[in-house]
């Protein structure tokens, strides 16, 4: 809740989402600048900072991509302004060059980079462990165990950053970002310093001359971490086993130790400063035991770095287990309390009395239909994939489609008729298509289609489009312009005309940008299935680079703006079960609004779900689907 983020109530405890706590922590530290690119599970942080920007007297922007965001923060830091940069784990790979360079130049105003990892890739294409980037770039990293610590660590991160003159990373995971728990508020600064004058000889320059300084900063961070209140040991003085853990693992481990009655024999060493590790602190505790279980999210990062410490300390005689050692914890996927319980049971032999549960044999269990992800009712992407799929079939040239990252990534699944043959990363589709399209000189004659959403277009497709234009690749680039970064919660992007702070801005026209590059561009409405199918068909017949903008607003946004037209089925006209069209509307079109009336054996509209786009009415061969209340796009 926005009011909590800026509530001047030190000592008051509220239920806060992890992302709210992070935003609050940054405000308590007195940031004046925040920049981010949206990505689950991080997106709420900047969204909230944007909403409170005016009241909190800060600047917040949705940057065009993560590199823009990080380097914008570096700019603010140059003027000694405290800044917060936020991204998800894919983003921290995108910013690799900027991050490694910034670590050489160091910072002036405190700069905290919050990276939200997504173990099990709930809303990502991978579960990359961003701690590798912190280590590779020699950047100190903190890892909170709960929402309170997320707030406190972000706040303290600024002190550390300015003490070291180095940026500081805070790694969270989905369960912290999207989880909620009690957070006790601290004080908000009464006054915020103005930007400092940058003197003639002030420098923030990334060049290898500063490698020694970079190493020294890391060593200094390690010294500070040896006494950090974010690291602690809880347990007996001579434990049989120590669990070394960070992040979500702390609460799961505490609960497992409690449930299994192991409090007198198993200790927990909680590490909040995961890079560089406080070596002396760790050795001091590990020397008490012979068995160590490391509990952490995603990769055996902590585990391998502890193994590294053990290698240099002959006084440690330890059997190490975790995601790597003993295969005590699965090598990939998110932690949960049961994984930790099972690991501990396997290592100690202890069990506990679980509540009585019933397992129904499979043959007696009700068959449950799986709940696949699909596009929302009325989503223009459904229409886009429908018409692209049919156009490529009609063309009969075995068109190849290269996907990209956004809601429309689902187009590679059933929701989009399994349209993709290729999917890589943000901006990957157009680049791969450029390469494939240039194989035409060797006789490759299948149509090549690359897709990108409007937000992805600005994020990472511009260099690819210039490349494809300059080399006149034989391809069709389709921009699915739904006027939203829908997947992550409708953050505005440069094409929208609104900033993160809710201020109007002059939108950057995708069409004009594409035209300025010199591309032939066509704009079409994906809801006009027949007309746009013809348009796409004619485009893919032409040689060279073609650009098509499929423009139709995200249904979830559109329905908020207008009276919903009513769509219903005239069941007298519907051909129904017997000799009909195989339930084309619900079976092939697949909108959650098109359901089947099993009693009547006819089609039906779920009027609770339907947003009134009316496309199904144009597809029904019997004209049984009716629409009233004006056109969808008015």
């Amino acid at each position, binding site marked *: *809740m926005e009011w909590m983020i800026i509530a001047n109530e030190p000592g008051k405890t*509220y239920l806060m989402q992890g992302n709210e706590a992070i935003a609050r922590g940054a405000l308590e530290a007195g940031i004046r600048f925040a920049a981010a690119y949206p990505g689950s599970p991080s997106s709420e942080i900047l969204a909230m900072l944007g909403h409170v920007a005016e009241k909190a007297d800060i600047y917040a922007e949705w940057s065009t991509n993560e590199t823009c965001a990080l380097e914008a923060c570096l700019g603010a830091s140059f003027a000694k302004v405290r800044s917060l940069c936020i991204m998800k784990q894919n983003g921290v790979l995108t910013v690799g060059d900027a991050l490694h360079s910034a670590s050489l130049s160091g910072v002036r105003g405190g700069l905290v980079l919050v990276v939200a990892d997504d173990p099990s890739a709930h809303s990502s294409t991978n579960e990359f462990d961003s701690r590798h980037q912190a280590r590779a770039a020699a950047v100190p990293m903190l890892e909170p165990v709960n929402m309170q610590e997320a707030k406190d660590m972000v706040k303290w991160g600024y002190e550390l950053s300015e003490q070291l003159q180095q940026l500081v990373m805070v790694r969270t995971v989905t369960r912290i970002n999207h989880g909620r728990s*009690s957070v006790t508020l601290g004080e908000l600064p009464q006054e915020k310093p103005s930007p400092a004058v940058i003197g003639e000889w002030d420098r923030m320059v990334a060049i290898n001359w500063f490698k020694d300084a970079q190493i020294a900063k890391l060593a200094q961070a390690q010294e500070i971490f040896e006494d950090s209140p974010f690291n602690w040991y809880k347990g007996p003085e001579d434990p049989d086993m120590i669990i070394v853990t960070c992040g979500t693992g702390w609460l799961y481990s505490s609960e497992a130790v409690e449930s299994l009655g192991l409090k007198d024999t198993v200790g927990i060493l909680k590490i909040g400063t995961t890079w560089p590790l406080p070596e002396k602190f760790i050795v001091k505790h590990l020397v008490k035991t012979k068995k160590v279980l490391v509990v952490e999210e995603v990769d055996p990062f902590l585990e391998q770095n502890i193994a590294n410490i053990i290698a240099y300390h002959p006084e440690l005689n330890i059997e190490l287990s975790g995601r790597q050692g003993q295969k005590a914890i699965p090598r990939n996927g998110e932690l949960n309390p049961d994984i930790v319980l099972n690991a501990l049971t396997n290592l100690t032999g202890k069990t506990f009395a679980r509540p009585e549960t019933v397992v129904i044999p499979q043959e007696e269990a009700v068959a449950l239909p799986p709940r696949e992800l699909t596009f929302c009712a009325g989503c223009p992407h459904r229409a886009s994939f429908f018409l692209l799929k049919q156009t490529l079939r009609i063309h009969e040239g075995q068109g190849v489609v290269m996907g990209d990252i956004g809601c429309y990534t689902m187009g590679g699944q059933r929701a989009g008729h399994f349209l993709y043959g290729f999917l890589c990363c943000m901006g990957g589709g157009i680049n791969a298509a450029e390469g494939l399209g240039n194989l035409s000189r060797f006789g490759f004659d299948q149509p090549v289609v690359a897709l990108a959403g409007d937000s992805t277009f600005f994020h990472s497709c511009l260099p690819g489009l210039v490349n494809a234009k300059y080399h006149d690749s034989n391809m069709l680039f389709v921009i699915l312009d739904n006027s939203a970064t829908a997947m992550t919660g409708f953050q505005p992007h440069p094409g929208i005309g609104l900033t993160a702070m809710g201020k109007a801005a002059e939108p950057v026209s995708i069409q004009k940008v594409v035209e300025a590059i010199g591309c032939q561009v066509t704009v079409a409405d994906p809801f006009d299935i027949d007309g746009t199918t013809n348009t796409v068909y004619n485009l893919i017949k032409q040689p060279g680079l073609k650009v098509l903008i499929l423009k139709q607003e995200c249904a979830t946004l559109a329905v908020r703006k207008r009276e919903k037209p009513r769509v219903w089925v005239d069941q007298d006209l519907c051909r129904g079960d017997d000799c009909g069209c195989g339930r084309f509307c619900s079976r092939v079109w*697949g909108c959650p609004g098109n359901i089947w009336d099993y009693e009547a054996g006819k089609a039906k509209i779920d009027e*609770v779900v339907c947003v009134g786009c009316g496309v199904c009415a144009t597809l029904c061969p019997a004209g049984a689907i009716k629409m009233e209340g004006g056109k969808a796009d008015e």
Partner: protein
Amino acid sequence: MSRELVKDPLNIIICGVGGQGNILATELLASALVEKGYYATVGETYGASQRGGSVMSHVRISASTEYGVLIPLGQADIIVSFEPTDTLRVARDYANKSTLILTDSRPNYPLGVLIGEASYPSMDAIVAELEKLSGQVQVIEATNLAVEAGNSQAANILLMGALTALPSVPIDVADYNKVLEQRFSGKALELNLKVFKIGYEQIKQ
């Protein structure tokens, strides 16, 4: 200070399909609990989709300490669900013979059912299996009642009313209403207070 809990931690799962409003309902519930001085943690599982995917929230309530955001398998004390097949899916993993289940009966058809590859089971079959898995099952026509009251989208708050009426849940109508008043105003508040009461009465009957 907060009352004694019948069980500590008390584990509640609130589940349904994206777009049904269970994240908001859960947030309001947990806020009311924190206002009362309990430790409450919430874990939310939602995928890439704004709508259409399964969404499950875990609420863990304790008088003494903070728990991790996820409930271990088989340890849900109460399951509140907005969608029957999702109720069963969640109950198979998290219910035990003492679990109390409140579920809406209105189906939300998944893609496999819409395209005719899978069929949607009958409510009787779902309830029969739920009864085997849990201690008690109560079906509440939350969406239909919410439609009657004025807006299908208010089914989430209606089910929260039913939940609050359960003796093991350590908040009362006034606590939840206070949070509703904090978040809503005007017609939306009026509707939410109304459906909350309707939900509450479903249990009292």
